């Protein structure tokens, strides 16, 4: 069962339209919410006039900041910095000033359009340069961060990592360049949807959320209820990619439900979703030293990451990516400065890869630059510096835990590295590692019913990665039960035990282990029952998957339970836990449970006249320890690869001078379609059974996107000679770079 490509649990529901997503939930008496927003990023709110709006038939409530407790309730996973509604001024385009609740969506929308907000637009901080400018307006009120030495700047936090002594490190060749990675948005096909409903003396929240237990805690804190009185239902999200990790508008809905005494529903439009979540934009300067043979001497890096008006989880993303910026290499000396900058833009949050695509873009491009200058092959320079199993990548932290060189060699072979290239073509290869979850706790309950069927209760969210299937496979393997006889219950904090989060590709390792432990607990209980029933000694009973054996005895689980319990019946309940404790002394709160390593290689063709690129072949090699369900791992990896092609070739959010997103929605913001695919896309898995998860599994599913941009840029450079350091590599940008080359210059810097 483990290692087979079992069909997706929940697949039939999805292919027939029966799967119920949050937006499909219908409750009796449900009201509809529409947000009132302004036409610019930052404005002082003078007055909100709800008179005309309240006259719209069907309107039940209009909430403004004045209707909320003082000081205004704030929430956020890093800092409690985000107000339930804007107070005093809006800080990003799309931040709600008021919320209208009505009997129908139409009435709510009509009334929202009639709420008059007297306001004055104020200058906004929209770029890294302005966020670092000491004369720029402060995005956040310094009073919110009283003990913070940086409180009177837009630097929300600054980290200094590194080891050795960069200043003293000598090098034969120094490469000093700046790389930019723009804002991009998640664009899950399911826009965010939320429902809140009063429930006796508590609240029920429905949300397409990745972390139901963190949402439960956020709601409990903001409305002042114990956890036990806040129940979160988390229907499987329709894609999340990090964008649905933390509370967005659920706190607002909680107040609206309490105010109206009825269920309230808010389904964001795709445009509103663009204004709700995005990836942090990075500007990274790297000064790298190399020996003449290509050995890395040092990296001296400065990352300025532009997060939004509120921190959400972005500081964690930024810190973690900076910490591991040197990648999967042996680097003798490193200096790493990382800044999380506030701006008047959509709050940046987690996004698949968690900051790694940004830093890998810079470091891998540096490796290429050094290879070109030193005349070393680009594959060679990587293999020369790559950490081998047991080598430290960050001194004192988890050492390299995979056979990464094997993955690189497989990618190189698959792309035909070194074989002759047709004119106009180029190849690129790049690597990256992402630190997995550091800490966290997952609890699971496995119930063996008296007919031998099994219910697994796990707080993971299945957002398409296939958690239900994998957890069912683990239980099926351990208890010898076919998947059709296993039910997976998720997404209800009222009945399913605690899980910290579904992120960082952690669920197979963390929750998988918890389920495995719970199954083994059930097996221990079966052994005990058999011993008591038949008067056997310790060691005489062996419980195998599906079968209990003792000398002269072989019983299926349900047969044993029937004999033991008779008509009274019962069930066995096993609990399992997997915890990773917080380590206060560690810069990230704990070492990663594993590294997610990926090597991506591409071959492409560039039309020098137009800058158009055609990716002929794209190979992604992931070190997954052991693929519990190879088909599901591969399709995740392929999806990550194509998502990586999105931010590499076409995706970026463009802001106008008012801080509004210019390309809001599917018309103007392009993500890959079937027409943008490589002619050949391959996902290869390295399986050495060396992961910390069940049966040697590591996490997977993010790797495929980590190294796409540098691999593609490397291929473009080989095909054309043009080196580009700003994403995305649109045809226009490639064409300009090629043209500039013809004129003997460097490509023009990107427009802000």
């Amino acid at each position, binding site marked *: 069962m483990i290692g087979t490509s079992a069909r997706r649990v929940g697949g039939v529901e999805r*292919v027939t339209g029966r799967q119920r997503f949050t937006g499909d939930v219908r409750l009796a008496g449900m009201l509809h919410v529409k947000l009132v927003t302004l036409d610019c990023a930052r404005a002082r709110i003078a007055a909100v006039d709800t008179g005309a709006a309240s006259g719209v038939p069907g309107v039940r409530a209009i909430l403004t900041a004045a209707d909320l407790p003082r000081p205004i309730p704030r929430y956020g996973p890093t800092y409690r910095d985000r107000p339930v509604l804007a107070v005093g001024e809006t800080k990003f385009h799309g931040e709600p000033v008021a919320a209208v609740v009505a009997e129908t969506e139409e009435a709510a929308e009509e009334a929202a359009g009639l709420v008059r907000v007297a306001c004055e637009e104020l200058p906004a901080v929209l770029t890294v340069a302005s966020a670092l400018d000491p004369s720029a307006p402060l995005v956040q009120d310094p009073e919110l961060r009283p003990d913070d030495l940086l409180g009177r700047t837009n630097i929300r936090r600054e980290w200094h990592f590194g080891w050795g002594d960069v200043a003293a490190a000598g090098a034969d060749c120094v490469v000093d360049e700046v790389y930019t990675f723009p804002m991009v948005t998640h664009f899950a096909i399911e826009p965010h949807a939320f429902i809140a409903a009063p429930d006796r003396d508590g609240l029920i929240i429905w949300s397409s959320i990745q972390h139901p237990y963190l949402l439960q805690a956020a709601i409990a804190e903001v409305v002042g209820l114990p956890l036990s009185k806040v129940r979160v239902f988390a229907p499987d999200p329709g*894609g999340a990619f990090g964008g649905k990790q933390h509370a967005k508008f659920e706190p607002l809905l909680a107040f609206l439900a309490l105010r109206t005494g009825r269920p309230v529903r808010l389904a964001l439009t795709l445009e509103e979703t663009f204004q709700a979540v995005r990836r942090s934009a990075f500007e990274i300067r790297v000064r790298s030293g190399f020996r003449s043979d290509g050995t890395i001497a040092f990296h001296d890096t400065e990352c300025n990451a532009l997060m939004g008006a509120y921190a959400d989880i972005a500081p964690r993303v930024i810190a973690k990516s900076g910490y591991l910026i040197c990648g999967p290499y042996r680097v003798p000396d490193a200096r790493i400065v990382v800044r999380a900058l506030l701006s008047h833009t959509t709050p940046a949050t987690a996004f698949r890869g968690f900051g790694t695509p940004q830093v890998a873009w810079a470091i891998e491009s540096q490796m290429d630059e050094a290879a070109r200058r030193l005349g070393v092959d680009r594959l060679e320079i990587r293999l020369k510096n790559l950490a081998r199993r047991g080598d430290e990548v960050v001194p004192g932290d988890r050492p390299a835990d995979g056979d990464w060189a094997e993955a690189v060699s497989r990618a190189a072979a698959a792309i035909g590295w070194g074989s002759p290239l047709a004119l106009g073509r180029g190849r690129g290869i790049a690597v990256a590692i992402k630190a997995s979850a550091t800490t966290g706790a997952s609890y699971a309950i496995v119930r063996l019913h008296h007919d031998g069927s099994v219910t697994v209760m796990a707080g993971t969210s299945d957002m398409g990665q296939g958690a239900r299937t994998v957890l069912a496979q683990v239980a099926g393997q351990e208890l010898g039960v076919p998947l059709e006889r296993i039910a997976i219950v998720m997404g209800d904090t009222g009945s399913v035990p605690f899980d910290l989060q579904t992120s960082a590709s952690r669920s197979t390792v963390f929750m998988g282990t918890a389920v495995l432990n719970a199954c083994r607990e059930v097996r221990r209980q079966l052994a005990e029952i058999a011993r008591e029933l038949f008067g056997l000694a310790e060691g005489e009973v062996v419980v195998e998957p599906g079968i209990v054996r003792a000398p002269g005895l072989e019983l299926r689980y349900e047969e044993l339970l029937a004999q033991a319990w008779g008509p009274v019946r019962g069930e066995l309940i096993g609990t399992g836990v997997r915890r990773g404790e917080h380590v206060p002394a560690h810069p990230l709160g704990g070492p990663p449970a594993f590294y997610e390593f990926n090597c991506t290689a591409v071959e492409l063709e560039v039309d020098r006249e137009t800058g158009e690129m055609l990716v002929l072949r794209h190979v992604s090699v992931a070190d997954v320890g052991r693929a519990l369900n190879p088909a599901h791992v591969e399709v995740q990896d*392929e999806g990550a690869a194509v998502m990586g092609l999105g931010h590499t070739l076409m995706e970026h959010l463009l802001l106008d001078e008012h801080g509004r997103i210019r390309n809001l929605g599917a018309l103007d913001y392009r993500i890959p379609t079937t*027409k943008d695919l490589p002619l050949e896309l391959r996902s290869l898995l390295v399986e050495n059974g060396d992961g910390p998860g069940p049966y040697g599994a590591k996490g997977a599913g993010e790797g495929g996107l980590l190294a796409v941009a540098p691999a593609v840029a490397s291929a473009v450079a080989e095909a054309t000679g043009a080196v580009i350091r700003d994403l995305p590599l649109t045809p226009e940008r490639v064409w300009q770079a090629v043209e500039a080359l013809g004129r003997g210059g460097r490509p023009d810097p990107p427009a802000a």
Partner: protein
Amino acid sequence: MSETARVSLTLNGEPRTVEIGAGRTLLDTLRWELDLTGTKECCAAGECGACTVYLDGEAVNSCLVLAAEADGREVTTIEGLGSGGRLSRLQEAFLETGAIQCGFCIPGMVVAADALLRETPRPTLDEVLQGLSGNLCRCGGYTRICAAVLRAAGAADVTG
């Protein structure tokens, strides 16, 4: 309030009549008045294909169609594919190739692919890529979805 209209249509083979706001889209009407939530909404602008349904045998983006336009016509949604509780070959193929991840794009994708196969029963890969280019999926790399369509096409009668 806006005026209402009475719309009678044949929905998944059954006659249905609804009273709706005149400006209501077919998508909203299906999801809110007719309790068929299998058809999904993402962009509401004709760009993503999540809302694809059949209107008189032709695949359309139901977010761009007014419900009033469906009056007197035949609408088939994802819930109307397959027969007698059995999955169609195409639906089976989606399961077999591992084409389904979060599944949010899948109802629209299946209807679009079903329409493609009715039009072109033996499509080439290029025809599949072309035919599904209006349907966005953010989870996968599309390759398995295309494989599912080709697999279903190889399996004779796709209307199953």
